[in-house]
């Protein structure tokens, strides 16, 4: 192709991602001259709202940051505050937290796969449109999402902004008969999850091998969810309280979300990064199912994210069954004294590492809060991926093709822009 053309593509509002994101692409003489992934959502200032509040209010406040991953915010928060106060939770509390968290993974991942990402790979502009030709697949997605929501409701009374979590554990232990009913549903959903793994592996995704750094939690003997050390495939292995030594956030003019870099470089968090670093921690039946697909992990193709989400749904259902199988209600929380100081917490939200830090005063009030959500960590990676992926796709493609491919790349990361724009440093210059 000798034809040189100047193309400007602007996608002002990205569909099927959460929040206000936009993409600007400027190609001149067959090269990308300028590419910007904008996050234009107004900043939400959550960390400032937390200042001066009582520590016990934190789990319910941070749950409001996100309607789809409120459990993740609650879990990172209680972990940070309990570690500061020196409260040791019981094995029962730890197991039930993990079970509740599984519900959020099932719900969030199945929604993303079936309603947001899949239409891209099957050539539909929306899920209802795809549902007319693939009703069984979309119904499966809704079934799984509903199951995940029910698991959250079991502990949190409602699936959006649940209210059951407190520092020290839960306000109440679910009754045994409800757990048993849900167990039946979880067992019955296993075939759905297994079929989903095979189905996502069979989807024809772009063959796009990229060089990127994966960062995720790693736990000594389980697939990471509620706790672990922060590791990378470049050899990082640190406790969560050392995050700030290696990861720096900075602001860029075109985005209201902070950019986060790992030792100066973009990095990936989320299902693909987790699976790349932890495939050996999958329970046996889940690992076998993944091996059967023939897709080798770790993978360098970010488009395998959809498969990674499916594997994690299979994992989450399997784990929830294991954790609830011999369920007996127990004392649902521990309590103790407040202590002044700094506490750190980190868990694996559906979209990746969610890191919290709280400075607390002697009377148990929040002095300062810092929350680093997954989407702001992925932001630099998304921009880098867009650049290379669009070049690999071919700049001589039509504008519509380029636009769709750009959107596909972004949606593949399942960015939650509302979560990411919670903080902005405001600098006012008056002349």
């Amino acid at each position, binding site marked *: 192709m000798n034809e040189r053309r100047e193309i400007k593509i602007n996608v002002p509002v990205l569909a099927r991602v959460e929040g206000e994101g936009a993409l600007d692409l400027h190609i001149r003489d067959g090269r990308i001259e300028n590419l910007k992934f904008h996050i234009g959502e107004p900043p939400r200032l959550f960390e400032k709202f937390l200042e001066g509040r009582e520590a016990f209010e934190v789990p319910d406040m941070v749950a409001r940051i996100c309607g789809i991953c409120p459990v993740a915010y609650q879990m990172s928060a209680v972990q940070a505050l309990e570690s500061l106060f020196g409260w040791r939770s019981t094995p029962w509390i730890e197991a039930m937290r993990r079970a509740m968290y599984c519900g959020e993974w099932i719900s969030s991942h199945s929604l993303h796969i079936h309603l*947001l990402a899949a239409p891209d790979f099957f050539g539909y502009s929306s899920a209802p*449109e795809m549902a007319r030709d693939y009703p069984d697949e*979309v119904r499966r997605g*809704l079934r799984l999402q509903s199951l995940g929501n029910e698991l959250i409701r079991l502990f949190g009374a409602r699936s959006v902004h649940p209210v059951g979590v407190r520092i020290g554990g839960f306000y109440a232990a679910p009754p045994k008969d409800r757990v048993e009913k849900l167990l039946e549903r979880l067992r019955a959903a296993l075939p759905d999850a297994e079929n989903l793994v095979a189905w996502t592996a069979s989807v024809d995704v772009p063959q796009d091998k990229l060089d990127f750094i994966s960062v995720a939690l790693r736990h000594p003997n389980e697939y990471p969810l509620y706790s672990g050390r922060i590791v990378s495939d470049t050899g990082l292995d640190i406790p969560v309280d050392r995050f700030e030594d290696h990861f720096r956030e900075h602001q860029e003019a075109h985005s209201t979300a902070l950019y986060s870099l790992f030792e100066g470089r973009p990095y990936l968090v989320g299902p693909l990064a987790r699976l790349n670093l932890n495939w050996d921690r999958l329970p046996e039946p889940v690992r076998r199912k993944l091996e059967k697909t023939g897709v080798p992990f770790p993978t360098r193709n970010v488009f395998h994210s959809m498969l990674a989400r499916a594997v994690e749904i299979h994992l989450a259902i399997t784990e929830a069954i294991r954790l609830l199988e011999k369920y007996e209600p127990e004392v649902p929380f521990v309590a103790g004294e407040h202590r002044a100081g700094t506490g750190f917490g980190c868990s694996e939200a559906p979209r990746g590492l969610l890191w919290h830090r709280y400075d607390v005063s002697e009377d148990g009030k929040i002095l300062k809060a810092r929350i680093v959500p997954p989407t702001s960590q992925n932001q630099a990676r998304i921009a880098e991926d867009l650049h290379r992926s669009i070049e690999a796709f071919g700049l001589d493609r039509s504008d519509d093709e380029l636009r769709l491919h750009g959107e596909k790349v972004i949606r593949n990361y399942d960015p*939650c822009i509302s979560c990411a724009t919670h903080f902005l440093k405001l600098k006012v210059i008056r002349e």
Partner: protein
Amino acid sequence: MTPVRVLGLGSPFGDDRAGWIAVESLLQSDGFRALPDGLASAEICDPIGSNLLDAMRGADLAILIDAAQSGAAPGTVRRLDAQQIEDGSEPYSSHGFGLSATLDLGRALNDLPRDVIVFLIEIPAAAKFGAADGLSAPVAGAISGLVATVLTEIVDSHGVF
């Protein structure tokens, strides 16, 4: 699981509570209590999307009540057949799966009750959505009339009395 289900949509804030308050008033009304056992249930629905489809599944008639801003006089109540609600241009996302997108998905999957009726209560353009804001006077004034209409709808649909 009752054949008639009334679902209040909204949030706990200001006039957006209209659908929730309508459901609460309905549940407390003598007319609702006088309905035959097992005919109708009413509840505040977890936000829309798959939760709403779950809540309607298996019913013959679903009545949804929500607040709306369309420029009409505050307190105006409109009755729409779900078939009349086209999938608007609202983009849907992992969080915001709006009412029309949800109904559109339900239609595509053949997963809606035979009849779905939507009552929309017009709220003022300048409605406030603070935690401490109650319903504004025109919205509060529309609730009892709406409850009576919903009761008539339930009775007519099943030929009770």
